[in-house]
């Protein structure tokens, strides 16, 4: 449970007067490079700690928030996997435990990086909390690996599908960062798939994820729109996340 506290961030309040002042202050720090019209609805709250989130993909900082949300979900999942009382019995192989612990550490690093990047650019990471459908059994190797596969393939599809929102000279640095992360997610996906179906073509045969844009016949990995990715992630996140500016 303590991880959920880490998972939770302060909520942006760009619509309050105080926040408007804060925004103007930040805009000044940023050399006046932002225009107020860019200020998307980051929250239309339904109550303290349960603010829904609207991401405007016309602005790069909201692409960062999108990445943060997905990484926070993955980090939360693997943290719960490794912390589960049945971890050592569900995963009797030490090498499998190391693999899952490594992935947890990577997802936490991604989450913390995006959080820091959002903050460094004058934004506020959205407040999010997770939930898991009853089908996710943290004490079951089969269930954990199936959920992990879903998350990793979805993560790959998300970054590949978000690149178009960073395809400008001004955002090319962020595009490269996204590239640095997505290949690690793909490495995870490969390893998880290989644990499920060892030493077959499963590590890279993406014919089973055509629904999120993969084309096995052309050797092309998944690529999905933020709307599709968020719809798939929504069952795991308490707050409603809406994509605009697509």
């Amino acid at each position, binding site marked *: 449970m303590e991880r959920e506290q880490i998972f939770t961030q302060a909520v942006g309040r760009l619509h309050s007067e105080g926040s408007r002042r804060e925004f103007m202050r930040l805009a000044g720090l940023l050399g006046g490079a*932002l225009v107020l019209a*860019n200020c998307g609805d980051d929250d239309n709250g339904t109550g303290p700690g349960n603010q829904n989130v609207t991401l405007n993909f016309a602005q790069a900082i909201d692409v960062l928030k999108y990445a943060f949300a997905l990484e926070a979900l993955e980090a939360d999942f693997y943290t719960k996997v490794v912390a589960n009382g049945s971890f050592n019995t569900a995963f009797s192989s030490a090498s499998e435990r190391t693999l899952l612990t490594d992935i947890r550490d990577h997802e*936490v690093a991604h989450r913390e990086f995006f959080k820091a990047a959002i903050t460094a650019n004058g934004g506020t990471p959205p407040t999010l909390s997770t939930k898991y459908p009853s089908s996710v059994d943290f004490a079951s190797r089969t269930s954990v690996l199936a959920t992990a596969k879903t998350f990793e393939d979805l993560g790959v599809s998300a970054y590949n599908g978000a690149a178009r929102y960073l395809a400008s000279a001004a*955002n090319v640095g962020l595009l490269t960062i996204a*590239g640095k992360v997505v*290949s*690690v997610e793909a*490495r995870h996906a490969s390893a998880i798939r290989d644990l499920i179906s060892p030493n077959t073509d499963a590590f890279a045969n993406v014919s089973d994820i055509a629904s999120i844009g993969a084309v096995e016949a052309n050797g*092309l990995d998944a690529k999905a729109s933020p709307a599709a990715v968020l719809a798939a992630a929504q069952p795991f996140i308490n707050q409603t996340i809406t994509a605009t500016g697509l």
Partner: protein
Amino acid sequence: MNTKNVMDLIDPSEQKKIFARRDAIRAGVTAGLAMGSLPMVLAAMAKTAGAQGTTPSVNDVLNFALTLEYLEAEFYNIATGAAGQAFPATYAGPNAVFTGAGAGTQAVFNEIAKHENAHVALLRAALGGAAVAKPRFDFTGGKGATTNGKFNGPFADVYTNPGTFLALAQAFEDTGVRAYKGGAQFLISNVPVLETALQIHSIEARHASKVRRIRGEKGWITGRTNTLPMQAQGVYGQGSPASTYPAEDNVTQATINVSTLAGTAGVNAATEAFDEPLDVATVNAIAGLFIY
């Protein structure tokens, strides 16, 4: 209220002028531009990328990718017999790549070969008449020199020793991931091409992860640990310039030191969690070991 990135509305030649300046942000402000993009930390990287001087065209990047895919496809086709490839008389044989290499290894490489051949076809179709021809490869690394009709480079046992084959496969896959990652920035003018390149990029990463794991390594790259032969030491090293193309032991992303952020697991996790791009020249130097 969506404000399109103003840079998108600017004539490309004007953009080039702006990014030729040392500080893209300052240029934008001076010109009275409002940039609907990340102004600080991440834009600093755009400056670096834009200051490269010679910017490859989309076709340049695709041909660069095609050359790597030709290399990978032929390398695997020889091993698997895919695409009707007979075992060439110029290599020491018989082909023993999958002998004692573990259950399912051939299925793994059949899948990889299928993808690389698909990538070649895709890139050739995209480039049409502009596609470069397939170069001559010598996977022993000997630039085509022979002894008794067999390539005699340092990897003369590439198809008779599974260990050599797997090491080169890892070098090619991890280099391929870095190459596509480095090339993506030059494809922003063509979103469909950019997306296709990225879809290939992450497939290569799936390959790399599996090949590494067959070799008993982690699927991800820790620091710049390199278990590959001496000739492939550059695979995890820095490119040029190192500020844009750091070695795989880099822990700083967009000026943020990931290894020291609260809650993270330190240096190894920070290096593993981010793969690094590589520039065209450095990739070509690695691939060039096998082209004559």
